Structure formats: C-alpha cells, structure tokens
C-alpha cells in the first residue's frame, strides 16, 4: 500500500509573507541601522 506523504505546511501571513521572510526583514533592518550607526550616519538610539 502506498504511504501518504505528510508535507509540512508553512502558513503565510495576511501580508503574503512567510514567517522566515518577516524575520529576515527584521534582522536585515537591524543590520542596516547598525552599519549606519558605525559610519556615524545615524545617532545610536535604542
């Protein structure tokens, strides 16, 4: 008998993005600001 394949389902948010895409965006944004802080283009503010 053929076994049924169970596929993991990644649910998209209402914005049409996956959780990984949303987190990636957040980490990339933080990375960009840290870079700008280092080259003194923005004042460090947390």
């Amino acid at each position: 008998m053929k076994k049924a394949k169970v596929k993991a389902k990644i649910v998209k948010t209402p914005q049409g993005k996956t959780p990984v895409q949303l987190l990636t965006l957040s980490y990339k944004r933080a990375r960009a600001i840290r870079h700008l802080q280092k080259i003194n283009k923005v004042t460090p503010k947390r």
Partner: protein
Amino acid sequence: MRPIAEIQKLKQIIHNLDEIDHVPVLIGGKALALFGSPRLTFDTDIVIPSIKDLAAAKLLTNAMRKADFYYVNKLDDGGNPIGWIDAPNVAASRIMIDKPKTIFFWNPDLEMKIDILLDFPLKTSALLATAKDKMLDKTTVIKVASLKNLKKMKEIAFKDRKKSTDAQDLEFIASIMKSKRKNKSKEL
C-alpha cells in the same frame, strides 16, 4: 531564498534549547515582526522556565555556547554588550550568583543579542498554553506568544519604563486585533 545567518542561529538555538527540554517562546519586537510590525528591533526576546540550580544553568550556557553565544555580564548605558564570559561553566556560576530575571547572550560576529527571560514577565506555561506555532523551515517550529499575551507584556513594560517603542507596539497590537475582529464579523 537562502536564510540569513541570524535566522540560522535562531534555528540552532531553538534546536539546542529543545535538546535540554526548554521550549522557547518568542516574545517582544521580533514576535510582533511575525505579525507584520514594521518597527525596528535589535534584540530577540525569548521566554523559558526559571533556572533552579547550577546544573540547569550549565545546560543553558552550554546550549547557547554551542550556537556561539556568550553570556553578557556588562552592558553600556544604551544596552549594548561590552563584557561577556567565554567559558559556559563560569557563566553558569555567574548566573547563579546574580540570579537575573533576564539573561543576555551575545554573538559578537553577527552582533546578535538574545535576551532570555526566565518566566518573566509571564510564566512560560501560561505563554505556551496559547502560543502559536510558526514554521521557520520543514523541521523548525518556533512558538510565538499570542497577541493577547504580547499585549499584556507590552502593557507591563510600558507601565514600567514608559518607552515610546512600547506605546508604538501597543498601537500596532490594537490595530491587528481590530482587523481580526472585523474579519471575524465579516465571516459571520
């Protein structure tokens, strides 16, 4: 899309904590980012159960060290790590002496900070009861605190420190809850 280094590290931490029977619950700004919040956040906040003894502290510091995260013992005025402990067992002893509510871990290469909150501001069991599973990949699931609990925690934080970012997050949570209610009434 190839996951960026920070996501890989987060997945590694989830797996390492799972191995020592800690189911981490994502809270704070990164949890809200998963609901679509555009606010800039630097730290990743995770809640786990309290650490009862040195052995448990060692398990935690070793699990974090395996993912190249060091226990932070000194922060500057802006909350940036300026001192951290290399040896996980020494870090565990430090945790037992300091007994902090929040433990900061730092990866200097990625400049990534993970704040581990010990049953604080809400109990892990209470958060887990309503937490939502979000899949990061086919084998990694992250538990994310429910909107209701995120709101509760933000209210506690706002009352405590009156930060504008907390007010901004509360506004965002309110708007998401409102749109969810609207969608529900449309379905009915």
